């Protein structure tokens, strides 16, 4: 019980949204139903059955509260409701809704507790339950951690079923036909004689009823949408230039703003000369924001030009000015004082790792920028009565809190209009653009202010993926891996990000070791320790967070040991893998790629397995060592999410995750010099382009007990699989990303 109490306490701290003195809540608070935000201001004759469905005489609206940054969750959330509601795509509208406690994330808790996702013991599940209670009480609405599908899978189908049964009850009352005689399809209730009553025509009657909440979800065998190829709701708009993103919005009377904030992140502005800028065409004024200034103009480009014309005297950053010093800090962090947590301690590594067959190595994973293609932006209108914000964001309620703190309003006086996002990869979990737009608009009350970041400002003020360093000692004997002693040092992304968001995080940071500690191998002797380095440059969650760094370190280390043992990389991983669902993922890529077959000259293959956000992922990469450099020929990847909601979107997201992981592993890093990021735009941090993209063969497995998301999990296995393939083809072991420091690529 002592263990559980420790873990539970940590879960509370992680979830605790700046609640003074910690969090206290009882069973009542956890079990209490949460208010339906759609009930406020509901029009006469309109019915809302729960926070996700609203029907009036004209239309059906499904609320899809998880933010859509390209992962297609507007469609998937709607499909889950539609499956039970018996409406088809085209028969309803969607809305992101207003931020509300009702949209608390039920899946977040799974990754807040320090139990391996493959651990389904009572203790682990009890801790998850307690952490989930904290998330509910705090009303944490967040799109992140690949949780949209696991959060939505049951509750949105229930929302659809509740609405359907209530509409049937309304039809029954209206017609006198028993509910059991009624069917539903195509947004209608169908009477035994075939008469179809439109849901919209039943809305007024349904509005007078208490929702029917005693519903049973349909059996998987009867699903008509889930698991079958869907056409995403946004695909037509996104193929015709008609999809509106935040950056495209115009609000009546709006002005354009561009900011220049100290590129030494968090540093002060000591002085500036804006005289030239103020005289430029259609520049209205220059105002101050935290750490910098903003130019107000009548056009985005004019604002950019004027901002570039300002001369600044920037203060120092509070982290080391030069990149070498950042690595030095990590190098010095493998100390007893900096030990964050011993995550695994199986067998006796100290006794085993001696004598013949000892292998040692050190690894590095760099800072990497998010750089979504739609630069950060926001429109804010501050009036005395309230604030409106238009932007794409992933933590809607905390956005309200932070804006209210700047303008002096109450949280519920901040109306947030969430927008489709042109990518995020984690950057839209951050608030700098929102806070700056609010600071500007607060100085111009009554005028809507649209802030657009230039690409250079976006790069300068990205909070990149954290750097990490790994040290491995291992032992092989008799053709087998006997022991792995792996230590990883990194600054805490949870601490850095949480401090900016006003969401303080407590306890050990599992992201320092994510992708390393949680892989369900049964190595006879395995120690995995996380060391928390002092905070360096501010860092943030980058698609799959800790796992692209720590996973690269873990799997490369394991591959080195397997090769040192003279074992087959696939066979030895399968031998060591004790978790059945994970082993099947490895066996799938072995079969898909015909592992072990004859390869052509100069070719090599690498395999990797990383579990990320509860999803076991295995990948095989094949490369050719050509005269012009390494060419990536083909990828085979398998992942198990329990249930694939939309196989088309699943394949697209997995392929995209592979491209994202490989591209950054090949050629991307953020380095600091004079306290500033040296990379200013895409030519300095390019990732993958189309000509480098190999064929990517995807298989979704459905053996896992729990449904999981697929946005992030495909990323971490890519880099180590590529590095392992390059080793197989060339004999050169790459222990540092980006790989173009060690080899050339075609």
């Amino acid at each position: 019980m002592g263990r559980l109490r420790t873990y539970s306490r940590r879960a509370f701290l992680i979830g605790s949204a700046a609640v003074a003195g910690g969090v206290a809540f009882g069973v009542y608070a956890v079990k209490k139903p949460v208010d339906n935000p759609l009930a406020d201001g509901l029009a006469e004759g309109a019915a809302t059955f729960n926070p996700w469905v609203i029907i009036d005489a004209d239309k059906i609206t499904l609320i899809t509260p998880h933010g859509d940054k390209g992962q297609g969750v507007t469609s998937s959330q709607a499909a889950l409701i539609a499956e039970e509601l018996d409406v088809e795509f085209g028969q309803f509208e969607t809305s992101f809704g207003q931020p509300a406690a009702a949209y608390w994330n039920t899946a977040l808790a799974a990754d807040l507790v320090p139990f391996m996702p493959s651990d389904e013991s009572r203790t682990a599940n009890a801790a998850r339950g307690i952490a989930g209670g904290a998330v509910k009480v705090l009303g944490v609405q967040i799109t992140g951690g690949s949780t949209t599908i696991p959060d939505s899978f049951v509750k949105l189908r229930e929302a659809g079923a509740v609405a359907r049964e209530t509409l049937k009850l309304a039809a029954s009352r209206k017609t006198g036909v028993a509910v059991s005689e009624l069917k539903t399809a195509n947004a209608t209730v169908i009477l035994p004689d075939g008469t179809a009553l439109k849901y919209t025509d039943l809305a007024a009657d349904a509005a007078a009823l208490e929702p029917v909440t005693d519903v049973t979800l349909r059996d998987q065998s009867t699903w008509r949408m889930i698991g079958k190829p869907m056409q995403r709701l946004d695909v037509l708009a996104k193929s015709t230039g008609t999809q509106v993103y935040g950056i495209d919005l115009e609000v009546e009377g709006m002005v354009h703003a561009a900011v220049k904030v100290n590129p030494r992140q968090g540093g002060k502005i000591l002085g500036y000369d804006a005289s030239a800028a103020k005289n430029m065409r259609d520049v209205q004024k220059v105002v101050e924001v935290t750490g910098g200034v903003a130019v107000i103009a009548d056009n985005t480009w004019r604002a950019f030009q004027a901002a570039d014309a300002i001369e600044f005297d920037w203060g120092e950053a509070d982290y080391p000015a030069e990149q070498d010093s950042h690595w030095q800090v990590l190098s010095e962090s493998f100390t007893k004082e900096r030990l964050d947590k011993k995550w695994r301690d199986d067998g006796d590594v100290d006794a085993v790792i001696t004598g013949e067959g000892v292998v040692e190595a050190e690894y590095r994973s760099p800072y990497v920028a998010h750089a979504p293609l739609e630069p950060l932006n926001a429109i804010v209108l501050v009036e005395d009565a309230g604030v409106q914000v238009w932007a794409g964001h992933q933590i809607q309620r905390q956005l309200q809190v932070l804006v209210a703190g700047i303008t002096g309003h109450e949280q519920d006086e901040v109306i947030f209009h969430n927008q489709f996002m042109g990518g995020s990869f984690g950057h839209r979990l951050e608030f700098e653009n929102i806070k700056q737009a609010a600071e500007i608009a607060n100085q111009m009350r009554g005028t809507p202010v649209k802030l657009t970041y230039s690409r250079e400002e976006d790069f300068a003020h990205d909070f990149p993926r954290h750097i990490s360093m790994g040290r491995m000692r291992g032992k092989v004997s008799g053709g087998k891996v006997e022991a792995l002693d792996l230590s990883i040092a990194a600054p805490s992304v949870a601490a850095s990000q949480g401090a900016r968001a006003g969401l303080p995080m407590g306890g050990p940071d599992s992201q320092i070791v994510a992708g390393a500690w949680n892989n369900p191998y049964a190595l006879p002797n395995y120690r995995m320790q996380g060391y928390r380095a002092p905070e360096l440059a501010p860092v943030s969650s980058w698609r799959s967070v800790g796992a692209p760094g720590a996973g690269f370190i873990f799997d490369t280390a394991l591959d080195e040991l397997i090769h040192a043992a003279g074992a087959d990389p696939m066979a030895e991983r399968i031998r060591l893998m004790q978790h059945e669902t994970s082993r099947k993922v490895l066996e799938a890529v072995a079969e898909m790629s015909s592992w072990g077959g004859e390869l052509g000259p100069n070719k090599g293959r690498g395999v990797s397995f990383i579990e990320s956000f509860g999803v076991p992922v295995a990948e095989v990469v094949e490369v050719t060592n050509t005269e012009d450099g390494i060419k990536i020929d083909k990828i085979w990847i398998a992942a198990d999410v329990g249930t694939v909601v939309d196989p088309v979107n699943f394949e697209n997201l997995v392929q995209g995750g592979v491209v994202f992981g490989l591209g950054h592993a090949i050629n991307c890093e953020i380095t600091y010099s004079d306290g500033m990021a040296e990379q200013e735009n895409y030519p300095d941090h390019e990732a993958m382009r189309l000509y480098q993209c190999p064929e990517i063969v995807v298989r979704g497995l459905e053996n896992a007990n729990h449904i999981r998301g697929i946005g992030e999990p495909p990323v971490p296995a890519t880099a180590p699989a590529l590095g392992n393939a390059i080793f197989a083809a060339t004999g050169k072991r790459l222990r540092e990303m980006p790989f173009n420091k060690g080899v050339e690529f075609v």
Partner: protein
Amino acid sequence: MQITVNGKAHEVDVEGDMPLLWVLRDELGVKGVKYGCGVAACGACTVHIDGVAVRSCQVAAEDVDGEVTTIEGLGQPDALHAVQAAWVAQQVAQCGYCQSGQIMQAASLLAENAAPSDDEIDEAMSGNLCRCGTYPRIRAAVKAAAKTLQEG
């Protein structure tokens, strides 16, 4: 100065060096064309001038010497161009922000070369960045559109 966009002539009062991208987006309200990098490294701002793909962030307003076509002029949701139809059928888009530029680039390629080889597709499309990594579907959509256009 005068500028013709999607068949319609507009009189705009802008600096000669304002990039076409911003004339389109902020002066004329044509939002299908996107700002991504401002240095011709991402291709999100790709439009056609007299049918040829250009990066509108690098074309000064005073240098626009032909008719401009944006994604809105290529086709509409109820009257898709073959390239757009292929993009829908292949379900290319994730975030979709780069796709206007990708589609304009592909349409320009196919207007010039009705049956591009894999290498020619790679070469023509590699200036357009997709951060979500939809490249496998972009390739498939370009090939599907080429086939449709050839079958006429």
